[in-house]
């Protein structure tokens, strides 16, 4: 995601808490956000993989869609995303993308049906443009309610369930990609069992004025420590998850990005979303390029922008790369031409002008640990 544009930085409801915790605050998507706390990214990463970590993701864009009389919000949303939204049962959550006319990705998002509404979670850097896009396409059929001041807390890790269940027992039996209203500390919150680490966990949407108190209640649990955006990035990279603006953008299609699983079966054949003809053609014939995992040899780290070469010819570029603390080694992802995208293919990553041998490898790099009941 891009860093802040001009203008004063916005703050989330947890800003004071971040300061108290000694966070290093940096501009991110127009917000002043914690990149790390005093323990550092490696310790925060390990904390989230072994116990539980609390992330402030209140900068993300929460939007509520409510159908106008005689309309269906799910049907309306399907006009601008390729995901199967009409098939969402109340309490179910789904990952999808806003696509453009060429099949590119304007943003990726989570959608949850409450039965009465659809709740969307959009990327912070895209949320204003997304809101305009939603208004342009959905205003006739839906009430569109931005809830950009609400709190959004992600509690992630193998001990997230036991920690959150102490405050809200009902969350213990929730399954991955479901959502429900629960009371936490006497306040109604909307909780989904989802996240961006590849591990078990929850995202908790709170009223703005309750976010600080609930965050402190969670941090008071023995399993939980605060985690910044630095570890959020290394965790999602290990999980092979895309970061908008880096691994996916308006020039990449969901097929190229390896996100075909998120396109509903019927929607693949029936279309009816922006860029459907491009995406359907790629499904039928194969995309010209593919997002792949990359394991560089040795210790050098190939970061975003490093070229991927095969037999002296540039075949693609790294879109995310870094150190994987769980594995103790460098990992990366990037796009290569489809003909060269098979797992095990030997390539070279150009790091500071020098070729580093690497192998195309399956993702995730660290096995997902979602709770499916």
């Amino acid at each position, binding site marked *: 995601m891009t860093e802040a544009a001009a203008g004063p930085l916005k703050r989330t409801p947890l800003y004071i808490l971040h300061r108290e915790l000694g966070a290093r605050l940096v501009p991110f998507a127009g917000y002043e956000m914690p*990149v790390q706390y005093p323990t550092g990214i490696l310790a925060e990463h390990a904390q989230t993989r072994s116990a539980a970590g609390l992330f402030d993701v209140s900068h993300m864009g929460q939007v509520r869609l409510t159908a106008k009389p005689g309309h269906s919000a799910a049907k309306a949303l399907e006009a601008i995303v390729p995901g199967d939204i009409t098939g969402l049962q109340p309490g179910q959550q789904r990952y999808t993308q806003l696509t453009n006319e060429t099949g590119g990705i304007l943003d990726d998002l989570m959608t949850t049906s409450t039965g009465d509404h659809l709740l969307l979670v959009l990327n912070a850097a895209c949320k204003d443009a997304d809101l305009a896009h939603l208004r342009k396409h959905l205003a006739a059929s839906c009430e569109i309610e931005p809830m950009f001041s609400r709190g959004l807390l992600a509690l992630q890790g193998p001990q997230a369930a036991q920690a959150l269940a102490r405050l809200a027992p009902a969350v213990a039996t929730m399954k991955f990609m479901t959502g429900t209203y629960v009371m936490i500390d006497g306040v109604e919150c909307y909780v989904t069992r989802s996240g961006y680490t590849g591990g078990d966990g929850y995202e908790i949407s709170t009223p703005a004025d309750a976010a600080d108190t609930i965050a402190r209640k969670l941090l008071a649990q023995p399993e939980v420590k605060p985690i910044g955006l*630095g570890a959020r990035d290394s965790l999602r990279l290990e999980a092979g998850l895309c970061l908008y603006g880096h691994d996916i953008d308006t020039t990449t299609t969901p097929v190229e990005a390896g996100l075909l699983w998120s396109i509903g079966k019927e929607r693949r054949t029936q279309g009816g979303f922006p860029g459907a003809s491009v995406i359907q053609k790629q499904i039928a014939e194969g995309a010209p390029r593919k997002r792949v995992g990359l394991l560089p040899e040795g210790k*050098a*780290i190939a970061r975003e922008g490093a070229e991927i070469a095969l037999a002296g010819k540039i075949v693609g570029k790294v879109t995310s790369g870094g150190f994987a603390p769980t594995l103790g080694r460098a990992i990366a992802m990037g796009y290569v031409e489809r003909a060269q995208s098979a797992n095990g293919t030997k390539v070279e990553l150009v790091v500071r002008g020098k070729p580093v041998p690497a192998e195309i490898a399956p993702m995730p790099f660290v096995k997902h640990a979602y709770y499916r009941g």
Partner: protein
Amino acid sequence: MSVRYTNEHEWVRLEGDVGTIGITTYAQEQLGDVVFVEVPAVGRKVAKGESVAVVESVKAASDIYAPVSGEVVEANAALADSPGDVNAEPTGKGWFFKIRLSDKAELDGLMDEAAYDAFVKSLG
């Protein structure tokens, strides 16, 4: 022998005509957890200000510049297995490389400890 500092947050400690070079406590704090250090080859001739090493934290890669001109006579091979030394002991075990200075007068252009401390304070 006193230690000299650059405004790129490197330190150089002279013993005879060989300077040991590393990054400062302030620099390692700014970088965060160091996960990889690429040190220069022994025998390489370097000019003051030339990029000679790279330090990678979880978040980013940063160049390390030669604070003085000369020849690299030793590099800290231990950093390959324990890059965290840069965080734990930036002015001790976390040193990067040693240079035999070709012109000791270059040190005069660097900051002493008091000047460097004032420089860091000025950065807020």
